[in-house]
């Protein structure tokens, strides 16, 4: 069974970075900058903070890419690194918000919505209105680089919690969108 070409190209890029090829690193930055910035921007308060976190992220990537043993883990690893950089940057604030989500329950999985979100512009605005933990899981979901197992790895929580958090977050987002619609 042949793998997706994009996946193979990503792995090749990692190997080139590991061999110390400067152009490969520039390419990696170019390919991932947008998505990581979007994710990081959802975790920190200001745009300035987000750029600082991005810089810290690339510094960590540059230093640590040689230790990335499985190139197929690139996406997970990049999100983990950027998340760690964001946590370091904004530790106290993040913790306070993350704790609010501890009361989630697994039974919400059953009620998971499958209806897709359509208006990206509105979703983008509405993401700012949901709690940090929900925003984070929704952002990872919308960016679609990771499976739910990989999301669990990035967030450092069990798969079941990712499912319930995502389900709850989608419903919250939908209600925010509906409220916004009602105001118009």
């Amino acid at each position: 069974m042949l793998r997706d070409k994009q996946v193979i190209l990503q792995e090749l890029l990692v190997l080139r970075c590991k061999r110390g090829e400067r152009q490969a690193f520039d390419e990696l930055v170019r390919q991932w900058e947008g998505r990581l910035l979007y994710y990081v921007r959802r975790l920190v308060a200001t745009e300035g903070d987000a750029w600082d976190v991005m810089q810290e992220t690339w510094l960590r990537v540059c230093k640590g890419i040689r230790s990335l043993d499985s190139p197929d883990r690139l996406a997970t690893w990049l999100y983990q690194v950027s998340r760690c950089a964001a946590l370091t940057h904004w530790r106290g604030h993040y913790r306070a918000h993350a704790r609010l989500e501890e009361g989630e329950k697994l039974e919400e999985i059953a009620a998971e919505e499958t209806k897709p979100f359509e208006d990206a512009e509105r979703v983008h605005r509405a993401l700012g209105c949901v709690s940090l933990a929900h925003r984070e899981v929704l952002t990872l979901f919308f960016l679609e680089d990771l499976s739910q197992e990989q999301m669990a790895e990035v967030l450092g929580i069990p798969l079941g919690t990712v499912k319930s958090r995502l389900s709850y977050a989608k419903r919250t987002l939908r209600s925010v969108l509906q409220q916004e619609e009602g105001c118009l």
Partner: protein
Amino acid sequence: MNETNRVFRQQLLDAEQVTPALKDRYHKELQAMLEEQLTGMRRWIWLAAAIMGLGFAVGFGTLAVVAPAEFPWWWRLVFAVGALFGIGFGLLGLKVFRRGALDLKRDSWAYSGTAWAIPVLVVTVAMVSAPENVVGLRMILSGLVFLVMGAVFLIRHVVEQSELKTREKLLEIEYRLAELADRIQLERPMPPTSRA
């Protein structure tokens, strides 16, 4: 990822507004993180170091060639290798001077390589020229420990690089196969549609 999701993701990413000034500053800082721009004086210092390296190369090279016949052979070898290092350092210095910037990743590898090679050479020479007595034996033994450590470091690096290159080649083959499979898929004639 299906096309609808891809479009949605792109729209979401496009919705992120960034301040050009902040983005510019980030790019400059990122560049500075990987590459250190050399300003006037420091650039000239690199040129001076390059000239010095090349000067040493000429000096050592001359000594290796014109040394008197009674000179031990290992001294000629030392001079010859010294000349090679001089050339290497000179070329590196010239490259950095021409570029006007120090690549913190690539150039640091070149320095650490040189820093590794020089002590190995010195230790080898010390071992070869060790006197034939207990002190000499002690010199050789301690030198061996150092050389073994150096060899382990070098072998590890070479193995790692070869492994990465092999994996790269395998992935390239896999990519070509995937491309071929796609092409075959495209060129395959469509199955005849059933008539109503």
